[in-house]
């Protein structure tokens, strides 16, 4: 618990997290305002279209993962890993604290990201006189899925940061995977690609595009990815010398 309090203070005491949060807010506002006001009416009527449109809050997952990556890589980059491990030589407990801190900040990113997209998007649709076709269950899945998915991405980021302690390397790995590699796999082999973490976490928000997994299966898949990365991360932290 002490270590978790230390990790949360680390997140709050630099400008990195607030910068990521501002980036997320700017992107969410820009996307929602542009698509909801400029899209032709035909593209934003109906349940499926509206779920897809309002699922943009899932972009919070990228920001949460970046924040999670920073939890380890900035310690290696600036050398604070040395005092951190000296003050808590139990590396497993240190790792768990960082994973929890990453997930908690992910929840904040998810609430802000999807909260903005959803509330602003619905408001604009209503203002344009477009009826909301989503059911209450759709909306719940969209919001809960986004928040839970973003929390898991925060934890995945922590695991990745422990596996790849080089900050630039870890960020490039995340972005190359999320924006290139996984889309290629899903494009060519959707039956495989839907099990990969970005597409599975999208599916946690509901049927936002065809060929995705069902929501509950998707949740299990993303949790499994998180556990795999966390497991590899804790092994690396325990084995690696702090030079």
């Amino acid at each position, binding site marked *: 618990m*002490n270590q978790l309090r230390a990790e949360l203070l680390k997140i709050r*005491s630099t400008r990195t997290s607030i910068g990521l949060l501002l980036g997320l807010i700017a992107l969410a506002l820009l996307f929602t305002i542009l698509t909801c006001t400029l899209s032709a009416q035909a593209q934003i009527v109906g349940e499926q279209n509206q779920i897809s449109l309002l699922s943009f809050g899932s972009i919070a997952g990228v920001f949460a993962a970046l924040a999670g990556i920073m939890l380890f890589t900035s310690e290696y980059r600036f050398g604070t890993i040395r005092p951190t491990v000296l003050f808590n030589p139990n590396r497993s407990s240190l790792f768990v604290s960082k994973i929890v801190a990453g997930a908690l900040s992910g929840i904040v990113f998810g609430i802000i990201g999807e909260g903005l997209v959803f509330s602003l998007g619905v408001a604009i649709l209503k203002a344009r006189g477009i009826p909301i076709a989503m059911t209450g269950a759709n909306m719940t899945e969209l919001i809960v899925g986004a928040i839970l998915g973003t929390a898991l991405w925060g934890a995945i980021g922590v695991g990745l940061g422990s596996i790849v302690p080089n900050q630039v390397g870890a960020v490039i790995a995340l972005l190359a995977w999320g924006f290139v590699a996984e889309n290629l796999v899903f494009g060519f082999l959707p039956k495989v690609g839907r099990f990969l973490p970005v597409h599975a976490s999208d599916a946690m928000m509901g049927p936002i595009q065809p060929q995705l997994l069902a929501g509950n299966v998707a949740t299990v898949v993303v949790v499994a990815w998180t556990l795999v990365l966390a497991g590899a991360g804790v092994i690396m932290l325990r084995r690696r010398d702090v030079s």
Partner: protein
Amino acid sequence: MGPIHFVESPAIEGENVSYVVQSDSLSKRYGKVLAVDDLSFKIEAGTITGFLGPNGAGKSTTLRMLLGLAKPSSGHATIFGIPYDQLETPALRVGAVLEATDFHPGRSGRDHLRMLSRAVGLPDARVDEVLSLVELHDAAKRRVKGYSLGMRQRLGLAAALLGNPDLLVLDEPANGLDPEGVRWLRDFLRDFALGGRTVLVSSHVLAEVAQTVDQVLIINRGRLVTESTLDDLTARVGGAVRVRSPQLDQLDDALRREGIVTSRSNDHALLAQGTTRERVGDIAFAAGAAIYELATEGSSLEEIFLDLTSVEATP
């Protein structure tokens, strides 16, 4: 900078401990390079030990193994009788500064200390205490990126002192300090050790720590070269005295008759080994030899250090 005061630390209870730090055949191999080679030493409570050797001798690697940051390839190390990472809340027993620059530049000095103190459940009040101790109170809320090197060194020291430890481990703490900073550090370490606490301080420059330490461990190429008190080391050097005189042969004979080993330097001066200026002066007076110059060879301690550490590692 003002004086520093430490509260006398309570006696160590619990473990039946005779040595604060103990290294048993510690070795560390990186690929083909043997960075630390079968290194054994012990450090008693209440001493200030200089851990010396040229750059790359294996000092930092050894300290990291002592503190559980790096795993030894073989051998083992204990602090207060047990491995560092098995001490209960080691930060309350041991304070360490391994690099002068281990800070996030965008975080304030105070927040750096707060995040560490939280990890061991210390209150923020303790953070303010150590900030005053190292005289950083006024800069505490500024981001570390605006700190001078001396301020960073002191912030690192503040972090090490958070847990009011009985052992302080410092890796090259004088690097980059100005003379005033070096003096401040010296006084600081002396005061720290006064209450029976222990200091292990590494350096690649003997002169930097010669006025502070009680004993030295000298390593080279990962192996222990010398383990001795500073007095013994000084005695071994023997204080060569350099003397110039127009009656050089006469003086040389007189010195030899007194059992003093002499040699001639290139510039026709006489070097008398293992004696003092006073003695040489007296002998010269008795022998009727005029003295033009009489001086102790200044860097003799440094020379023996260089001698010891330039030896090829013995097979």
